[in-house]
């Protein structure tokens, strides 16, 4: 972990934003060529492209703040599991297409208001990355919201699958809006938003949308969290070796 004169909270914020985008982008890019319809192959590749593009901005910025010469690629491909700061939700396996869509929906519904709030960050570089990303996230949320509603309120089977996906993934959603000391420090400095407010907005939105989708969330479910501080689920330990393998097996090589 980097220490020293740089702003550690800002560094953490960039890693959290960047790692969420990177890990989710990595997950959905695995669908390429395997989606249920051709249009979805194309649309998912689009979302993956946006997210990996965002990851490279955030991680590039993180490297800048740190000031030790690490690039976005160094951070993406040469950090160990415990150094990743993504929330647990995005590292969960793809499952069936319903799981993939539900994971995306639960994430997008947080990502968009989060990015919008970050456009007001006192750090203009954060605001700029957030502004660019928010445009993309708007489209992502439109798409995933539409699918969750249509499939939730679709056939018996699609309803059952979406409900299953929600049951499995819902406990992970809480981590997105659950503030820790870093979030509080970021909000105090005006660098980031009050996560509590985003959480309230998230809850209100979910109630409305899940009703439309005829799905029910277990609001009492205990929150599963830890990714933001590097305590991951086992899933990440399988994703990273695949993603990082070439870089790690050819140290210093240029690609």
């Amino acid at each position, binding site marked *: 972990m980097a220490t020293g004169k740089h702003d550690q909270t800002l560094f953490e914020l960039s890693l959290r934003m960047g790692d969420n985008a990177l890990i989710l982008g990595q997950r959905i890019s*695995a669908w390429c*060529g395997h989606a249920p319809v051709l249009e979805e192959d194309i649309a998912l590749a689009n979302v993956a492209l946006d997210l*990996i593009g965002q990851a490279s901005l955030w991680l590039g910025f993180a490297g800048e703040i740190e000031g030790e010469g690490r690039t976005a690629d160094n951070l993406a491909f040469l950090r160990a599991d415990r150094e990743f700061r993504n929330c647990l939700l995005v590292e969960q396996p793809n499952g*069936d297409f319903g799981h993939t869509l539900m994971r995306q929906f639960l994430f997008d519904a947080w990502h968009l208001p989060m990015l919008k709030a970050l456009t007001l960050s006192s750090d203009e570089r954060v605001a700029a990355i957030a502004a660019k990303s928010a445009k993309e996230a708007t489209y992502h949320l439109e798409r995933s919201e539409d699918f969750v509603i249509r499939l939730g309120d679709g056939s018996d089977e*699609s309803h059952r699958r979406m409900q299953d996906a929600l049951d499995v993934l819902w406990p992970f959603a809480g981590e997105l809006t659950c503030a820790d000391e870093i979030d509080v420090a970021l909000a105090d400095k005006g660098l980031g938003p009050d996560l509590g407010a985003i959480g309230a907005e998230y809850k209100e939105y979910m109630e409305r949308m899940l009703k439309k989708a005829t799905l029910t969330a277990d609001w009492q479910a205990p929150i599963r969290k830890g990714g933001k501080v590097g305590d991951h689920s086992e899933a990440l330990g399988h994703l990273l070796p695949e993603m990082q393998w070439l870089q790690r097996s050819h140290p210093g090589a240029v690609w």
Partner: protein
Amino acid sequence: MYAQMVKSTGEGVKSLDEMEPQERAFQERINADVKIEPKDWMPEGYRKTLVRQISQHAHSEIVGQLPEGNWITRAPTLERKMILLAKVQDEAGHGLYLYCAAETLGVSRDEMTEQLLSGKAKYSSIFNYPTLTWADIGAIGWLVDGAAIMNQVPLQRCSYGPYSRAMIRICKEESFHQRQGYDIMMKLVKGTPEQKEMAQDAINRWWWPSLMMFGPSDTDSVHSAQSMAWGIKQNSNDELRQKFVDQTVPQADYLGLKVPDPDLRWNEERGSYDFGEVDWNEFYEVLKGNGPCNAERMAARRKAWDDGAWFREGLMAHARKKETRIMAAE
């Protein structure tokens, strides 16, 4: 070239004098370089040949996502990952344009998908080879997209309007595909000894299958003669293969890679490269389904389709519910 073995009617080319007035008018339009559009009259053989060719081409784009998709999650940098994602996404888009072009000839995308999944329809032999190292991603862009461009550029002038227009859109994207592949190779040959070795190994494995993409010699084929008379095909397979070799060998030289053909040499007189004979047995075996990855490619496409059935059905069920609600409200 994603449509390697397209049979036309096989009846031989008729002269204008032998044609009924309707067919004669059709042929004269083609001869005058006027595009045929979906609503125009066309001989049944022309329609069938085009459906076969366009759907083979579309299937190739779709199956073609798989060998490269195999490396998206392992791409070595964020930029490479994005470029590869964009490239594979383009190929899916090509499949989509082409299915749409084929649909104008009265065949639905579902029917074509069914033909692919049942093994009835073919796709290019090239996608039945495995991508074993990162260098294969470079070799595919450079050689496979390079060969595809060779074939697709003349197809922009195809007599059938919707196909020709699809090819124009596709060709715009293909040159980016080839460049990114060559760029990967360039980085590898300038890299570590292991990277160079990876690059040579990739050209060793991809060279011959790339030459097979043009299909067997068709100078004596009635199918090709008919396709040419109809303005569906512009050049013979051998012509295009030769052009490809002539263009690609200097690129390999520039990379410092050896083309795996002991018979390859510059022929001053012809102003072209002489090269060895393709192993056509291997080609026919792959086409029959016995290539190194045929089973995996088909299994992957079938799995995607079968696993996605609930998704497609769910969306239709929602649309039906919505319609009923609207009707009930009225």
